[in-house]
């Protein structure tokens, strides 16, 4: 690894982010059936690798937008876990004051500019963030998270074309988890065609990485981000990954027929966290005890965040009418 020095500085952040995402999502899955998180909720369990690898590579002045499945991205960008959980609980202390729920997260203080529930909706918005960065000649970048389904929206193509035309500092992070709801890629995109083929065709340099291999993710991300910061235009990285639970909600759904238990188990076997822990241990970069300690701390933090969300007040409807306009 060319940038080993940096990596060594970042390994702890990555591990913390992996734990934070996984354990917060597991916490949601566990509590969801209580019926207190009353909004559509898309979990990222199994997909922690990419956001975790990205976390240390972004500056607080970089910006990001995301999708319906935004928890991991929000957290990786440094978004406040308390405000996120409070939002999912519909509380006044939620990052969107209870107005948006799980699919509408924002933390302006760390440059997480918003996630929205319409597939593809934030893609051009992320490109617009980068347009402003370019006009102001900043070295900041904008990250646009997209799924393999969002690629099918015409607005992705339009936004990518514009990003390429103006050579904007955008990083498209595509988490290809093979499915859009229950539809496999084969129902939606030509067989044998790669997403990166499309994007290369549009005129954006692409890379691919194994989303379960955090070290590889980090390496590819760090190279590409470096190039964007140098003003060399937008980049698109496709990561292979897999969502473990149902599309929307806390349960497993491998039995309903759109995918097999075997497929799930094969992906689970490649799971990003254990693999990264193993890697750290193998290279003696961190001891299992230290890792356990970190995880313990994260869990404390998460428990406190759930506590915060639970005890926070509900927002009052009085203010709704006054905030239609800003």
């Amino acid at each position, binding site marked *: 690894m060319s940038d080993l020095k940096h990596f060594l500085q970042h390994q702890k952040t990555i591990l913390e982010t992996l734990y934070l995402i996984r354990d917060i999502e597991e916490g949601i899955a566990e509590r*969801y*059936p209580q*019926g207190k998180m*009353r*909004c*559509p*909720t898309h979990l990222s369990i199994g997909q922690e690798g990419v956001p975790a690898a990205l976390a240390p590579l972004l500056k607080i002045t970089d910006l990001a937008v995301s999708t319906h499945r935004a928890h991991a991205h929000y957290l990786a960008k440094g978004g406040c876990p308390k405000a996120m959980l409070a939002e999912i609980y*519909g*509380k006044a202390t*939620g990052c*969107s004051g*209870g*107005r*948006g*729920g*799980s*699919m*509408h997260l924002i933390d302006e203080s760390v440059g997480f500019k918003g996630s*929205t*529930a*319409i*597939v*593809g909706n934030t893609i051009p918005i992320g490109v617009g963030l980068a347009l402003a960065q370019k006009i102001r000649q900043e070295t900041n970048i904008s990250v646009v998270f997209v799924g393999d*389904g*969002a690629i*099918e*929206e*015409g*607005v992705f193509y339009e936004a990518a074309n514009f990003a390429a035309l103006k050579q904007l500092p955008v990083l498209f992070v595509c988490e290809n988890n093979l499915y*859009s*709801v*229950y*539809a496999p890629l084969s*129902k*939606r*995109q030509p067989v044998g065609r790669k997403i990166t083929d499309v994007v290369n065709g549009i005129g954006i340099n692409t890379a691919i990485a194994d989303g379960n291999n955090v070290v590889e993710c980090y390496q590819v991300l760090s190279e590409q981000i470096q190039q964007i910061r140098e003003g060399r235009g937008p980049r698109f990285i496709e990561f292979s990954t897999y969502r473990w639970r149902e599309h*929307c*909600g*806390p349960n497993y759904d491998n039995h*309903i*027929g*759109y995918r097999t238990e075997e497929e799930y188990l094969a992906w689970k076997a490649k799971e990003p966290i254990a693999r990264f822990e193993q890697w750290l241990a193998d290279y003696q970069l961190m001891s299992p005890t230290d890792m356990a300690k970190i995880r313990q701390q994260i869990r404390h933090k998460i428990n406190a965040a759930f506590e915060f969300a639970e005890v926070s007040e*509900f*927002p*009052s*409807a009085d203010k*709704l*009418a006054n905030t*239609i306009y800003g």
Partner: protein
Amino acid sequence: MVNYMTDSIAEITFAQAINRALKDAMVEDDSVICYGLGADDPLRIFSTTKDLVELYPERVFDMPTSENGMTGVGIGAALNGLRPVMTHQRLDFFLLAMDQLVNAAAKWHFMFDAKSTVPIVIRLIIGRGWGQGPTHSQHLHAWFAHIPGLKVIIPTSVNDAYHLLKQSIKDNNPVVFIEHRWLHNQKGSIDTNHKSTLSQAAVVKQGTELTLVSSSYLTVEAIRACEFLEQHDVSVELIDLRTVNPIDWPTIYTSVAKTKRVLVIDAGARTGSISGEIVAQVSEMLFDQLLAAPARMAMPDIPEPTSYSLTKDFYFGAKEIVEKIMTMLGIDIDPTQVDSLNVQGHHDIPGEYFKGPF
């Protein structure tokens, strides 16, 4: 093949009626195709497309998440002899396809001098509650009603769901067929003798003192309100619009000319709503006959928020309708009785069977 058409069917859900209409239409006419996100997936769009892909694997398919393009594909297929039924699980997603809907589908017949027709049906499902939030709950039927050339169906009853969907598929025009998610589990029966017709409103209940005009899920609330008022000797005539483009003016005029009072209720945002259209038109046409100011209840000009607490008093229902009618008629009913109209249990789900999250 079972001939579903012979018998009237008792006690099925609205979603089953939709499914039945699709199945019957596909059996009867080879040219009907059915597609949309989830059309052939395990959940089958809230079971509304159940069994279809097994019956007609070539004519039922999922699609890429490309709402605008796939609307155009449907228009082209319709121009070339097919009768596509496209479904979107939320109306909100269909905002991506307004160019195809408005600039192509709605205008084709007119702008090409009636040389061809676009027989496409677009089913749109409106979400509500369980934190659907600002972009999964929009009641934009007023938009579609504003576009010449579209037919816009917004049924309430199981019988109407069945007959109006079948007729929409048979119709040669682009039809926007709007289903409220909370209706999907409402029960009712299909009466094969009583076919509802496109562009006719239904007089759900006769009455003498006031005309209540309603549509879609709100008609369920309106029926509760009317039954309550009936028990208190208040006679309200209830009209279920069923179609908001074109609007069935004769049925509305006849009723208002009789009752001399009108209240229009609407789940769309107030400004520019269909309730406004009806109040305006009635005011213009029947001004001299009205005994009191016409009125409407519509949603505030505010997007649906997500939080449980914020949606608590967001929508109005039977109770608020009763209160409004009491004011309009200047009558008193014991408030505790009126309060009994409040929904028991959680306000943000269509029934206790619902466990989220969709």
